């Protein structure tokens, strides 16, 4: 912002959207030799107008397009919308449904973090095998999802009033089995990646984001917690079963790309422990309250917040007494973190070769930022 970009030595590079590491966005880099002066994110390549689509559908039908925000993390995103509907319509949710929801949210968080971790390994250029490892390990979770919901990616399993179906017989044991398997793999990853000298060289002290900058620039999720700010919606405003579960907010004090990766990594361990707690302690009872398919919400507004894998997702639902939402404002976590990414060249010295590492430490999901 402060550097004029027409200085003769500065060259503008367009990076993406076809680059394998950039995702569905274009990043403009103003570089002088190897040093990056300015980062400009050109978003909008996957804009579908989900906020407008939701205005034209009934509350129930809106769950399906809503989950298209983040495919690796559909339960968390769906829960944000479903809990907003429940609050607007005044629907009670049975206790067991809350626990099933938390179970699925944590499984999806692991799924999403493993994907992010594989990409981070890939972006350092030395560990293509790790991306394949994480893909194989995610299959363990996908099979659990398939048995529970019948789908592997987009479940539409949360409905206003509860969840679509109860846990199948013996599902708790399979969850425990999966947790034990993933714990063993967790150790492998830690040794092969986090303590690896090459990975440390690529990630340590790259793109430092100080706590005050993270707060000022509106970072969220693992990016904020990687800057040593303990903010987590699950702790601050417990929803679903998080009030009854034993967990802590994970932070790292190094504030660099490595810290952000480590936060995600340790959150996987935390989510595994939560999955185990849920499988052992899930209360019995009904899993759903029946809600009529077509309902009218009285005029008003609801702001629901959930902690998705990428950070805080807010759904601000306005109702006017009709069968559709009047307006849905989605506060997407990736959009906030992309702004932080744009400012990182001003906060710390970044080289061109670091850009894939830095952007994957943000863990962007452009379908989420573009909506």
């Amino acid at each position, binding site marked *: *912002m402060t550097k004029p970009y027409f200085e003769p030595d500065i060259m503008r590079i367009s990076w993406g959207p076809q680059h394998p590491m950039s995702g569905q966005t274009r990043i403009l880099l103003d570089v002088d030799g190897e040093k990056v002066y300015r980062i400009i994110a050109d*978003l*909008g390549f996957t*804009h579908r*107008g989900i*906020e*407008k689509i939701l205005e034209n559908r009934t509350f129930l039908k809106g769950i399906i397009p809503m989950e298209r925000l983040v495919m690796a993390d559909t339960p968390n995103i769906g829960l944000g919308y479903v809990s907003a509907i429940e609050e607007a319509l005044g629907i009670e949710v049975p206790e067991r449904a809350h626990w099933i929801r938390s179970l699925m949210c944590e499984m999806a968080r692991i799924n999403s973090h493993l994907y992010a971790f594989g990409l981070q390994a890939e972006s350092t250029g030395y560990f293509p095998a790790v991306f394949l490892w994480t893909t194989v390990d995610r299959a363990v979770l996908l099979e659990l999802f398939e048995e529970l919901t019948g789908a592997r990616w987009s479940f539409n399993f949360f409905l206003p009033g509860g969840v679509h179906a109860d846990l199948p017989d013996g599902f708790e044991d399979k969850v425990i089995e999966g947790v034990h398997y993933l714990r063993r793999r967790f150790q492998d990853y830690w040794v092969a990646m986090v303590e690896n000298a090459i990975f440390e060289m690529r990630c340590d002290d790259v793109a430092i984001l100080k706590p005050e900058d993270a*707060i*000022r*620039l*509106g970072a*969220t999720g693992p990016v904020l917690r990687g800057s040593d*700010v303990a*903010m987590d919606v699950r702790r*601050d*405003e417990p929803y679903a079963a998080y009030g009854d579960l034993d967990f802590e907010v994970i932070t790292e004090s190094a504030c660099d790309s490595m810290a952000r990766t480590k936060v995600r990594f340790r959150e996987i361990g935390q989510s595994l422990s939560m999955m185990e707690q849920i499988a052992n302690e899930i209360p019995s009872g009904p899993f759903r309250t029946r809600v009529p398919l077509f309902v009218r919400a009285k005029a008003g*507004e609801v*702001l629901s*917040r959930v902690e998705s894998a990428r950070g*805080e997702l*807010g759904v*601000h639902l*306005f109702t006017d007494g009709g069968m559709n939402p*009047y*307006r849905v*404002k989605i*506060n*997407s976590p990736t*959009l*906030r973190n*992309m*702004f*932080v990414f744009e*400012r990182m060249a001003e906060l710390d010295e970044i080289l061109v070769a670091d850009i894939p590492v830095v952007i994957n430490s943000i863990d962007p999901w452009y379908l989420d930022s*573009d*909506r």
Partner: protein
Amino acid sequence: MTEEAFVEAFQATHPDLVVSAEVLNPKRVSVVVKREGFLHVSRSLRDDFGFTHPVSGGAVDYPKENRMQMIYYLMNPESKFMLTFRVDLPRDDLTLPTLTQVWEAMSFHEREAHEMFGIEFVDHPNMIPLLLPPDWRGGYPLRKDFKGEGIVE
């Protein structure tokens, strides 16, 4: 600071500029201010009340009442409740001073509100479309009277 204490202190600090300030739910506070003192109140929210963590921003269109409401979502890292900071604009005069001079991170959200609703943010440093294509001439998609015009050459 609890939600009620904040609402009381805020109303006492800016008695002339506040249209309404209320606690909607636990952890949700809504503040509507007049457009005249908008920038002054924003600075006071950041400096006096500790709302240093910007979350998001967006608008809602009410064509029947001939107004739009611009909403900024703010957070105080210590008290951890969500503040929705709102200002009403008449639909025929959609200008606001930009809040990027108070919270830099509102840049993306104001760019989005500009292309989706047509709100003009005076002195915004980089007012280019965020999500829509650069050659988009089809109107403002999230307005209620948008009928899907698309690109008009």
